């Protein structure tokens, strides 16, 4: 277990370094980061001045070294638009996004996992059809479309719920609902297939051969092993939600990380874009590390490994 933790942690750090390099090159994909970041109407002299100011005229490797060194000393660069340290902006916006994503994840888990279990335990029966239908429906509904529909119904026509900004708990309802639907759908399908796999496993057959009742087989053998397998699935879905927050936050005008990314892109504030990207990628890597460690702790095959 100890070696596993160590190995997995080192791996995550290496991944993060790799992501830093990717993010560095992303804004240079067009070949000329200076004109990318300057307004279209800027003159070539202005662009040249900006290029020199930002150090884009130096050799790429020097810039990369500079950037990586900056990241590991906490200097993520300055936002062009807000003229402040980009990491501060990000940290300011993070809590709202995590609240929203966690709410959506909660909804997705509460609906998706029971539905998936229902389907997997009753494969081929009407309840399975219902679960599969809802799962597929959730999966194919774009969150940005559902958000618009929810606004039309609950904010414009019925006037029950707010559709803009965050002002009290009711403001979270529509955004969280819209954001959760995709993860809910995927959870139904992944839970269902995991349950099916466990139900068809040899050890469940052994449990049945002991004369256990259906409830005992489900409770002691099927659910527990399904739950363990779902740990990493949930962490992956959480990462998806952080991405979907870009749409949802900009539609509902929620001042989180997602809408900050949208704003930064529209303002060509790429140093800020880079920091947001890095932050979300780091969150994803961290989540998957936590999930793997949890899995390792829950699964004796890894926990007791020497």
């Amino acid at each position, binding site marked *: 277990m100890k070696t596993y933790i160590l190995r997995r942690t080192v791996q995550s750090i290496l*991944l993060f370094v*790799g*992501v830093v390099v*990717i993010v560095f090159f*992303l*804004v240079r*994909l*067009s070949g000329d980061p200076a004109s*990318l970041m300057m307004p279209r109407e800027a003159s070539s002299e202005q662009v040249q001045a900006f290029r020199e100011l930002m150090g884009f005229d130096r050799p790429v490797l020097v810039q990369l070294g500079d950037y990586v060194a900056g990241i590991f000393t906490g200097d993520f660069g300055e936002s062009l638009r807000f003229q402040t340290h980009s990491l501060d902006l990000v940290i300011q916006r993070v809590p709202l996004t995590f609240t929203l994503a966690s709410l959506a994840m909660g909804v997705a888990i509460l609906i998706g996992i029971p539905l998936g279990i229902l389907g997997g335990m009753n494969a081929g029966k009407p309840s399975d059809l219902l679960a599969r239908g809802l799962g*597929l*429906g959730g*999966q*194919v*509904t*774009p969150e*940005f*479309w*559902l958000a*618009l*529909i929810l*606004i*039309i119904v609950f904010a*414009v026509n019925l006037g029950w719920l707010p*559709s803009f900004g965050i002002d009290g708990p009711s403001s979270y309802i529509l955004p969280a609902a819209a954001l959760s639907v995709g993860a809910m759908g995927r959870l139904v399908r992944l839970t269902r297939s995991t349950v099916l796999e466990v139900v*068809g496993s040899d050890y469940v057959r052994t449990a049945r051969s002991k004369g256990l009742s259906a409830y005992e087989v489900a409770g002691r053998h099927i659910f527990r092993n399904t739950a363990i397998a779902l740990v990493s699935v949930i962490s992956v879905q959480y*990462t*998806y939600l*952080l*991405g*979907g927050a*870009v*749409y949802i936050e*900009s*539609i509902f005008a929620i001042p989180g990380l997602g809408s900050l*990314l*949208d704003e930064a*892109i*529209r303002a060509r504030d*790429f140093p800020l*874009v880079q920091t*947001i*990207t890095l932050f*979300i*990628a780091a969150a*994803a*890597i961290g989540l*998957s590390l936590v999930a793997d460690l949890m899995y390792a702790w829950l699964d004796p095959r890894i926990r007791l490994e020497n």
Partner: protein
Amino acid sequence: MTETRTVEFGDRSRGFRKFLKLILRDPAGLIGLVLVLGLLGTAVFAPQLAPHDPLEQSLGNAKALPVFSEGGSWDYPLGTDRLGRDVLSRIIFGARVSVTVGFFGAAIAVAIGLVIGLIAGFVGGKLDKALMSLVDLVLSVPYLIVVIVVAAVLGRSLFNVVMLFGVTASPLFARTTRGEVLRLREAGFVSAARATGAKLPSILVRHIFPNLVGPLLTLATFEMSAMIFYEAGLSFLGLSVPPNIPSWGNMLDSGRRSLFTGLPWLSIFPGLAIAITGLSMNLLGDWLRDILDPRIRRARG
């Protein structure tokens, strides 16, 4: 259950009839196939199918209601937007963007992934390790964020979007290809073929490719659906095709701007098109996976 069985895809004599039998047995797969073919047809024959020019503005007919609302007419079955453009025609032409992105994006992803996966699987050793680390690295970054940022850097163009999806989805195909190559090598096929004096190209064509068709086709179907989804999302954020080209995401973006001005159909119909497309490709993909993926088949047998 533990015995290895390879599925022969090359059996064409029984192939087509078996295909018919399999698709007729599974109504969901059949629905998926029909819808996907319908989508393809819509994209190809858009000029013939669309009742109006999707770009034609007629301010006199602006904000026309859809036919099933009171005051709507068959002239504009799904209504018109603020500039009087026919929503139905725009949706029909929007299918062209989605189909192009899905089809070419997946084709590029398959091509790149196949090459990387074959090299990793056959050469093995350090090169394999390096390539797979790269694949893991790319897959560890939240996909949507990367796509948004790259699209923002490259600027609005259909070509850029297709290339972007093709390149960023290729690691998935590389991993699948490599896994399949390793599985076949482990099963002893490759060495058996080598022992009989077969050269690499013939091993590829006779043993590797037939077994790759199933997994890659299945993955490609799901990825096409994902690409169409992501393209719509990028359009919605104003990061995909230019605003003068009708695409479902662009239409939703303008629907969003009209949310509070009483034009809900501008938001409803393009999203419905995206959802139905996603549904059809997922149904088709599920069905393909059930019948083509040797692992699933083996587990069932």
